[in-house]
């Protein structure tokens, strides 16, 4: 049934694309595509590693425009550990957030402990009082069937799944998944599958008991947001941010296809999952928000070139669904690099902002590695990685005169200090994971 539905949806999208392709030129695009090279001028006659930043930004919403309808499933953990203030705040935050929705939006609420309960089946937000009453009846008890909870939440979204809507599961959990699949890998796979259907999962980890790897994987593979909320009092704020994000989506299903030209080979994509195949790189963003810049940093190896040569490095195709005009859009751009023997020329040409962004992601990767090392019990190794990262940030910060990078350096040094404390590691790790995730995905809150 779901399969049939999905294929129908895809067919519909395809038809819209074909039908509206002629109008392509007429109306304004909702998304800007920019491609920048950290080092637009490179030293000639040597091989280089270069960072390319491909950024996408949704336009500002105009007042007259009708908002894109949302299709939201709120999945609440009501296991025994949520009892008391936590569940109360969660319910309050959910109800408050739902009150922001309008009649065109669809909401469903799923709660889970050892079992899953569809508290509010997918419904139009017309009677918020009934929904609020249903939410208030939720009581804490039992274990944590997180996987099944997300599955049922996604199933509620499917009832009104529409690529022209913002389809999102918002998962709140405070504990370890202990019924059903519980590894980050499995949840990540589920997230990936949901993303392919046009849904994303935002994960909110409450308190210090949840599995941050699982939560970031689930959010990462489906391109949702992730937040670590230590205190239940902050839940309302996070829900407001999240709904703010959801309600500002301008484009969905963003496929980024990068082709490396002229012997350039892709090395890695920083921060995001990407599929590198030969000289081609493919990645995907589930959505773009109004006035939020999302970017990916691609590291490539550039073969040596002659002096004064200009070479096209990569060519980027972006496909996305414009939600306002309800049609598929295509953007294309490419970047060229110049080669010179003059050192000053190379130095003068450096794109500070792009380099900054790249450095931030490089440091972020190092931070990830440090956490991995710390997980293996190698505190000294983790520390040295962070110090290396700080060194890197310091060098670049000085030469680019970037206060942002120097700030990040101070952060890295502080992290290195705090790594040692075993007692607070649980909390620290959650903070680090959250920060890494937010950096990598340029999350707005």
């Amino acid at each position, binding site marked *: *049934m*779901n*399969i*049939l539905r*999905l*294929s129908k949806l*895809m067919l519909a999208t395809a038809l819209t694309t074909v039908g509206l392709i002629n109008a392509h030129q007429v109306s304004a695009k909702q998304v800007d595509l920019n491609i920048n090279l950290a080092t637009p001028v490179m030293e000639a006659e040597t091989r280089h590693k270069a960072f390319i930043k491909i950024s996408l930004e949704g336009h500002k919403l105009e007042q007259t425009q009708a908002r894109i309808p949302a299709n939201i499933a709120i999945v609440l953990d009501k296991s025994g550990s949520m009892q008391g203030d936590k569940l109360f705040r969660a319910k309050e935050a959910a109800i408050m957030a739902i009150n922001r929705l309008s009649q065109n939006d669809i909401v469903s609420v*799923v709660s889970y402990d*050892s*079992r*899953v*309960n*569809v*508290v509010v089946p997918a419904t139009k937000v017309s009677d918020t009082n009934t929904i609020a009453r249903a939410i208030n009846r939720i009581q804490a*008890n*039992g274990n944590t*069937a997180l*996987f*099944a909870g*997300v*599955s*049922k939440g*996604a*199933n509620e979204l499917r009832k009104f799944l529409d690529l022209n809507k913002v389809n999102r599961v918002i998962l709140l959990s405070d504990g370890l998944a202990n*019924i*059903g*699949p519980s590894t980050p890998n*499995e*949840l990540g*796979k*589920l997230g*990936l*599958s*949901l993303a*392919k*259907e046009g849904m994303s999962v935002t994960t909110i980890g409450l308190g210090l008991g949840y599995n941050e790897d699982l939560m970031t994987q689930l959010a990462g593979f489906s391109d949702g947001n992730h937040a670590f909320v230590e205190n239940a009092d902050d839940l309302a704020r996070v829900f407001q941010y999240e709904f703010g994000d959801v309600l500002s989506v301008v484009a969905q299903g963003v*496929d980024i296809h990068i082709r490396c030209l002229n012997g350039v080979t892709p090395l890695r994509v920083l921060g995001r999952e990407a*599929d*590198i*195949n*030969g000289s081609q790189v*493919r990645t*995907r963003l589930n959505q773009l928000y109004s006035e939020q810049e999302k970017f990916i940093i691609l590291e490539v190896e550039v073969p040596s070139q002659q002096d004064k040569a200009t070479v096209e490095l990569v060519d980027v195709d972006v496909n996305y669904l414009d939600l306002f005009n309800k049609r598929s859009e295509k953007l294309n751009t490419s970047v060229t690099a110049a080669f010179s023997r003059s050192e000053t020329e190379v130095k003068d040409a450096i794109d500070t902002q792009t380099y900054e962004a790249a450095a931030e992601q490089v440091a972020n990767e190092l931070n990830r590695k440090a956490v991995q090392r710390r997980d293996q019990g190698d505190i000294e190794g983790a520390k040295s990685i962070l110090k290396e990262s700080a060194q890197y940030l310091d060098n670049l910060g000085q030469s680019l005169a970037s206060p942002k990078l120097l700030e990040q350096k101070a952060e890295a040094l502080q992290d290195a200090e705090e790594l040692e404390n075993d007692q607070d590691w649980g909390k620290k790790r959650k903070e680090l994971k959250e920060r890494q995730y937010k950096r990598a995905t340029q999350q707005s809150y």
Partner: protein
Amino acid sequence: MKKTLLLLICLIVLPLVFLTWYSVRLEDQQQALLKHQITGLIETQLSEIDQQFQTHFLRLESALNEEARKLEQAKDPSYQLASFRSLIQSSPYVEHLFLIDGDGTTLYPQASSNSRSEQSFLSSTLSLRQNNALFTNNTDTSEILPSPPIAVTNSATPFSAKLRAPAEQQELQISQRSAFADYAAPTAEIAASPTPDSSNASLTAHNNTPVQSGWIAWYNNSRLQHIYWRKDANGNTLGFSLNNARLLSDLINLLPDEQQSKIEANLRNVSLRMINSRGETSYEWGGSDASLQLKPIKTMPLSHPLGSWKLEYRSPGLSQPTSDWLSKVLILITISLSLVTLAWIIYREQSRAARLAEQRVNFVNQVSHELKTPLTNVRMYAEMLEKRIDPQDSKLHRYISVIDNESQRLTRLIENVLSFSRMERSESKLDLQPGKIGDTIHKVVEAFKPSFDQHGIDVKLKDNGQQTVFFDHSCLEQVINNLLSNCEKYASDSQTIEIKYWRALPYSYIEVSDQGPGIPDELRNKIFVPFYRISNKLTDGVSGTGIGLSISKQIAQQHGGDLYLCPSESGACFQLKIKTDSNKGSTS
């Protein structure tokens, strides 16, 4: 009294034991029946779930067949690998694809690929891809099951009743599904397929070539992974590796949530679990949460390709149905209580009656004892008087003999009463003394002489026993007294009474026969029952206690002998048999 108590206890306990046994058996039977019925219901319920899953796999199959067909159509002349990639990128279900040509060479993913996920997929499926046998259909089944071919129609309901077909391959890890026959195929191949899919059948009609396909369930890092493979006309095998998390998510979505469980009657009081191959709970549902600690009532393995998974059914209501027991136990308690009450009442009445009777017997005993002393005095003074009076005065002599006779009669009566009560209390003991039985008989007959003379009865004594033997004199006297007293009372018109005495070791026999009316045959035994008196013309008007014969019989039995009525032509003939010995102590 003890006997009564025992009897009453038996009366209570026996029916109770029977009732309990019966109700336990009945309950057991009902339970077994109920259990059987419920197990049947549970099985149906679980296999329905299994069928739902099978249907899901069939749907997946048809969706994947559709994709495979698209990929085939895009061939130019070989497969477009780019279309493989875009399928992986867009399909929520397919995680990886592989393509193996007829020679077993893997065409996709390419070994030269620098994609990390493709490389790890290649290494994890290496042995799988090299095993060519996995990608062939087992045609043997068609020979095993020679059913007539089923007509394939483009029916509107793609998953019809054939889903109910027995799944022979349930235990196999790797399904060997046979080809779907197309319209032209005249063979019985379609019948061999346990789950033929008509949507596939209509699909294959496009190509007009039989298509081989099947599911492989395999373990990757101890997680169950599914691959759907399909062979095209050129012998290439296309394999779709499914996203296992997504598959589980879809299966979970086929199962009810908590709210639904509370609404549906057959889920309200149960707890169901889907258990994966590692024994972990994948999903849990049902309306009861108290039953988590219980043992599963039913565990059912799922069909291929979920062969290593199973469903567990738990319910708290079935393992201990207390409600029925309670009423049965209540009934039993009520019955036993009323029985006990009844028995207690009976016992009380009985013991009161017994006490009364004992008091009466005691009273009679006492009175009899009290009577003995004055009677002895009466007899003594009568004898003394007889000696003092003039022997010529016949009138006075007659008077005195009457007094003597009557007081003797009274003595006998009292003697009888006392020995009866002694016997009742089992107090009497034999007092064996040496003597001649003939002397004792003479003595008794002498005592009766005046009375017999009066009635004109002649006593013939045939006595040849003059040996000295040991016997209880007074007892023997009492027996003969009783027998002669009966003759006096009931056979007064008898001409003669014959008393015979003989000895046949170790017994002595005394026979008393009269010429009276005799005793009817049917009453032979009854006359020895205490207090029994024959009621007829003869006995009416004659006073008696009805204990004489019974006492006599008991005395005889105490002597190791008996008293019985001998058959005779006329009159009554009683024979007394006692064990007598020349040495003391040999009788007992």
